[in-house]
């Protein structure tokens, strides 16, 4: 599922809180990119931290592809359609002051923020993030905002998914695959068969309500284990960020 569950032994571990702060600050700094050289500095820094966090080229390419599908493709389609409309209906208010350089710049800056977010979640254990969030937002619980409860629910969901995905792929997906491979069945019949599978699946899953209820009641995250840790890795991370900032803002 693209889940960075177990990164032990394969990753430089940095305290989740410090990593969060650095990720947010880096995202803010990306908004200060004003020219090509800034983009180059920023890209180089991202490549360095990608390598240090032991991610890989496949990860970068996957992110580029996702970003392309969600932002670039719709933008290009919109651009093409607006150009077409301006040819078909000249004189209407289409594409005034279109500036491709400015648009490309915006897209690259946005990709930086996208990439920083992905890299953060790819290289930080989920439990560490939840623990840290529980500690940081704990005061909100006394104001009536059920942060601990919802974080607890998120942990239960992730646990349940990890337990059930194998069985689901084996049973339900296999049944669905057989239905949709059958060329003799029409769309209506396939829909009916699929809905029967889903109803049985939902009914069976709801039988576990009492079991899940007990898990929800367990003090999963209300007593957060998170404590801020400063070691060699955290100091190196902060130092590298400071050095990057010095180069970056010296150019401004």
């Amino acid at each position, binding site marked *: 599922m693209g889940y960075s569950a177990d990164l032990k032994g394969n990753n430089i571990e940095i305290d989740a809180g410090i990593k969060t702060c650095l990720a947010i600050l880096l995202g803010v700094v990306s908004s200060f990119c004003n020219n090509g050289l800034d983009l180059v500095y920023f890209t180089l820094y991202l490549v360095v931290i990608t390598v240090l966090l032991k991610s890989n080229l496949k990860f970068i390419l996957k992110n580029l592809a996702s970003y392309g599908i969600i932002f670039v493709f719709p933008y290009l*389609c919109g651009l093409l359609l607006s150009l077409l409309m301006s040819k078909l209906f000249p004189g209407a208010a289409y594409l005034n002051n279109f500036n491709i350089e400015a648009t490309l710049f915006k897209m690259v800056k946005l990709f930086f923020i996208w990439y920083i977010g992905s890299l953060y979640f790819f290289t930080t254990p989920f439990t560490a993030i939840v623990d840290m969030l529980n500690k940081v937002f704990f005061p909100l619980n006394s104001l009536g905002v059920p942060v601990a409860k919802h974080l607890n629910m998120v942990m239960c969901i992730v646990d349940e998914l990890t337990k059930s995905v194998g069985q689901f792929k084996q049973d339900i997906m296999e049944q669905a695959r057989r239905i949709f491979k059958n060329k003799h069945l029409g769309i209506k019949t396939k829909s009916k068969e699929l809905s029967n599978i889903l109803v049985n699946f939902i009914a069976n899953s709801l039988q576990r309500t009492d079991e899940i209820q007990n898990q929800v009641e367990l003090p999963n995250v209300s007593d957060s284990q998170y404590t801020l840790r400063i070691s060699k890795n955290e100091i190196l991370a902060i130092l590298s960020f400071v050095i990057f900032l010095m180069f970056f803002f010296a150019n401004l």
Partner: protein
Amino acid sequence: MNKKKRDAIIIILICNAILISLLELIIPIPIPVPGVKLGLGNIITIIAIAFLDLKDVLTIVLLRCVVVAVLSKGITVLPFSLTGGLLSAVIMWLLYKYLSRVFSIKGISIIGAITHNLAQLIVASLILREIVILYYLPILLISAVITGLITGTISELTVREIKKRDIFAEII
């Protein structure tokens, strides 16, 4: 129904929504446009609208978006999925509760899909600060009608069967 039981049902439904989304890998989508998905997980949203209250529906949508964003695509997708998900859930809930004589579940699903796509496009336009991206709307509207119809058809059959078997009545 006590709060813990309600939370347990919400957790189960969210897991179901995420797992059901995996079926999109098998079911061929009749729209060859990158990024367009069937949205089978919304079947669970419609089931929640039919059997639970609005607060639970919105909790399901919110937590599902957060879990999916964290597990697969990164947190940057969250503004899109949350805006589209929450807005379409509210619209579908209103239509189901007050206009169910006018709109079938299929119709509600189509309107929900249109709302979802429109909201995501507006968010993308605001983030990029580009109007041009809104010209993608016709493609998204057509895909929303098709995917909404498919999901709505399956949802209608599923809700009918769940009502017939009284599945939620046994639990609640």
